């Protein structure tokens, strides 16, 4: 491999790390702010209280032009909030067309079903973006997956556990469209000049230069292919 291609590999890895790292930094600042707030209240928090705090944190980012984040917020551990067993404090950005079917929807609150007896209720603690951070106490990238709860589209969800008094009280997170990620990363990956594929921790294809490796497919392990971890993310660049 020539030096030029090596530097293009480094560039692609950096692009992946920076793209996701920037979003994680943002989420982590929300996590810290929520933890400070909950700490100041000695763990006694109401729906109105948490909604006010989360809205002030996430809405500015969702309002920005060309924002990569299309939905963001905080999802509480069942039983943590004093006046709601289940609670999602989640906002959807202008680019998010979930539930409105309009090309230019307003920034708005996600109206999730929080009543467990309802037919459309979904127990979010069984979902990957909840389960993995809850099990590992670490940030996690879920997807690409079709998110029928918050975006109705092909999505990546980044979540970070939020802690109080040594236990997880919820996750802070953000949704990204896979379309946008493809547009952002593909030029960098293509510059490598040979077959290159970014996969997630489950070996699911995020973006590939090979048109026969569709996003969402599982890339079977191949010993001949070189694998490079993309910085702090759990994503891997596969060459060949």
């Amino acid at each position, binding site marked *: 491999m020539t030096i030029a291609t090596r530097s293009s590999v480094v560039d692609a890895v950096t692009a992946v790390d920076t793209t996701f790292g920037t979003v994680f930094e943002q989420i982590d600042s929300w996590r810290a702010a929520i933890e400070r707030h909950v700490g100041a209240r000695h763990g006694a928090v109401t729906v109105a209280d948490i909604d006010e705090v989360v809205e002030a944190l996430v809405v500015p980012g969702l309002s920005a032009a060309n924002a990569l984040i299309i939905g963001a917020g905080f999802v509480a551990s069942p039983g943590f909030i004093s006046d709601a067993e289940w609670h999602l404090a989640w906002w959807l950005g202008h680019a998010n067309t979930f539930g409105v*079917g309009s090309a230019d929807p307003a920034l708005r609150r996600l109206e999730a079903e929080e009543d467990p007896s309802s037919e459309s209720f979904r127990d979010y603690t069984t979902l990957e973006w909840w389960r993995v951070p809850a099990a590992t106490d670490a940030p996690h990238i879920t997807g690409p997956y079709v998110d029928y709860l918050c975006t*109705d589209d092909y999505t990546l969800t980044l979540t970070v556990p939020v802690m109080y008094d040594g236990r997880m009280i919820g996750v802070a997170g953000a949704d990204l469209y896979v379309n946008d990620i493809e547009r952002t990363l593909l030029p960098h990956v293509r510059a490598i000049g040979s077959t290159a594929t970014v996969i997630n921790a489950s070996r699911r294809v995020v973006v590939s230069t090979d048109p026969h490796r569709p*996003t969402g497919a599982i890339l079977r392990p191949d010993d001949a292919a070189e694998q490079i971890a993309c910085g702090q993310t759990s994503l891997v660049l596969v060459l060949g």
Partner: protein
Amino acid sequence: MPQSIRSTTAARAAVFAPVAGGGRAELVAQRLTDAIELGLLSHGERLPSETEMARQFGVATVTTREALEALRELGLVETRRGRDGGSFVIAEGSRTARIDRRVKALSRVELRDMGVYYSAIAAMAAELAADRSTPDDIQHLHATIDATDASAETSSRRGEGTFRLEVAALSQSARLVREELRLQAEFAPLLWLCLREETHRVRSREAHLAVVAAIEDFDGERARRLTVAHIAGAIEWLLDAKAELERRG
């Protein structure tokens, strides 16, 4: 003289507030259906004319006409001609009675066609899922099946919907998922009418387990075949039930 719509309360006013976005006819129909289910619009009440409703909803007249057509099919509205005519709310009878009315109102051709279309979506989703699922996804499908109580009808209905939606999501196709959701809203109460019987609830659970096993084996062809057979079985049951309803008159 039939009572006409008056926006006496905020809740009632909201029923006829403008609707935004695509699929406007569905949105209008949904708004009216919800209002009837919630009792905001009562039995025998006359709805505003198509033109008046179009003005209030901020949509084209053809859209309200389409919405009313959907409500007529659901047995929630009847339209009478003449001087005292118009569209009137039907809110009497139980959910079961309403569904039975709808089964009788639809022709055999329509019911079969509904099955064919739904089958095309659900079977393609199952086939793709077999190629694109991780062990974690398989475990999640098993959890969905385990969470369903085959001895209870409500749990089985919800379980059927959740399982199909999860499989559609595993296809990694946003369009298939959206279509699955749309078809569930439109057909599910009819299509899975067989879940009224415990034998079929147990059979449904077995069918789901078989589909998951096929997905686990990366056998898309088998996942597709099992899904088609399961849906075809539900349609056959529905057609028999329709024949029985027609015999009883």
